[in-house]
């Protein structure tokens, strides 16, 4: 099926900033690739690295996490915690063999609709470049 060749991206976005930014991209008609599947969380601090691990094991080509800019978190300090957790999670995933280009972590505010669209496009392109390489960690079948 042709769709399988397109990279599948999981984007975990915080509700107050990044998800709103994605909404803005939509209402402003900034096009971004359909490869991105969005999951909304209340705050980037809610992002548990197990979600990122699961995404790669279940076959996602890339994972993106985005939250409010440091200092602007709706819950004041959530994104500071997220920054540390995700930094460590990234290192672990790189260590076991996930290509660094498959992970992208960023801060996108509610006003940055254009940035959201650009980030998604660039990330998708990066993953398309990697489509020749083997998708590590991804499970192949039900019994494995």
């Amino acid at each position, binding site marked *: 099926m042709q769709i399988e060749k397109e990279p599948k991206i999981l984007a975990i976005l915080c509700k107050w900033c990044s998800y709103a930014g994605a909404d803005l991209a939509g209402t402003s008609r900034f096009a971004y690739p359909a490869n991105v599947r969005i999951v909304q969380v209340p705050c980037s601090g809610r992002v548990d*690295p*197990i979600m990122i*691990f*699961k995404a790669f*094991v*279940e076959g996602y080509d890339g994972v993106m996490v985005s939250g409010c800019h*440091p*200092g602007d978190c709706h819950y004041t*300090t959530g994104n*500071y*915690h997220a*920054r*540390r*957790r*995700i*930094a*460590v*999670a*990234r*290192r*672990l*995933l*790189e*260590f*076991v*063999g*996930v*290509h*660094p*280009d498959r*992970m992208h*972590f*960023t*801060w996108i505010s509610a006003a940055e609709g254009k940035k959201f669209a650009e980030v998604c496009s660039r990330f998708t392109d990066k993953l398309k470049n990697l489509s020749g*390489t*083997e998708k*590590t*960690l991804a*499970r192949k079948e039900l*019994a*494995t």
Partner: protein
Amino acid sequence: MNEMRNKIEELFKNGEIDAVLGYREDPATGEVKAAVFKKDEALDDMVFDGRCVQNLVNYLPTLVARYRKVGIVLKGCDGRSLVTQLVEHRINKNQIVALGVGCEGVKLDGKEADKCDDCATSMSPIADYEFGEKKHKKEPAFSKVEEIEKMSPAERWKFFADYFARCERCYACRQICPSCYCEICVADQQEPKWIEPSAKLSANTMWHLIRAYHLAGRCADCGECERVCPQEIPMRLLNNALEKAVHELFDVRPGTVPDEIPPLVVLSKEDPDTILEGKNE
């Protein structure tokens, strides 16, 4: 050793402790195992040498629940894991008497254990009484981690997938780790079921990744997880990779400073955003 025995007898006598966690040599077989010495028991079988491999801190919480106050014999690495237990308020300092012993390295299968190459401290960072010599700390070597870091992503995954596929999910690594003490482990959670119970590569990968991640910044590198694994999976490699990461990112070596809050609990506003970047960015 005699010095320590005398001190323990003294502590029993003046009622300060009701039991001691130490190492006992079985007179019949010569094997050395973790053991609880109670108040009126003879301490003749208590030993401390390179055969004292087990991390006794793992048993501490059960024992402090049963006895009022417990003494514990601590190697350097075991002491590091005790620091984590105290900082996380799992045990109170006033429930234990820490008997630090200067460790000269332990033997596994007849030769010195790998973990002793990276020994952060031969004497427990927490010790009410110290016996033996404190040796200088070695700077972390992480040489095995660096070997993996030289491989390409595909090579790394091949290396790890072979091991993860072997995992039986016996959870010995979890049970023996003092820092793994969640009442309901994430591996046992049903809703959502993050980790499937069957021992297949995908579920095992999830298990090993989350186990290593939950220990990030808390693992004392006591090496017990690797020792007990029936499939000889290099558990320490994952833990050390994160120890290196935490050291590079936050300049912390877990458990070496009493009362130091683990790095992933700390709220820091000053971390640079660059820590989120991958190698190619």
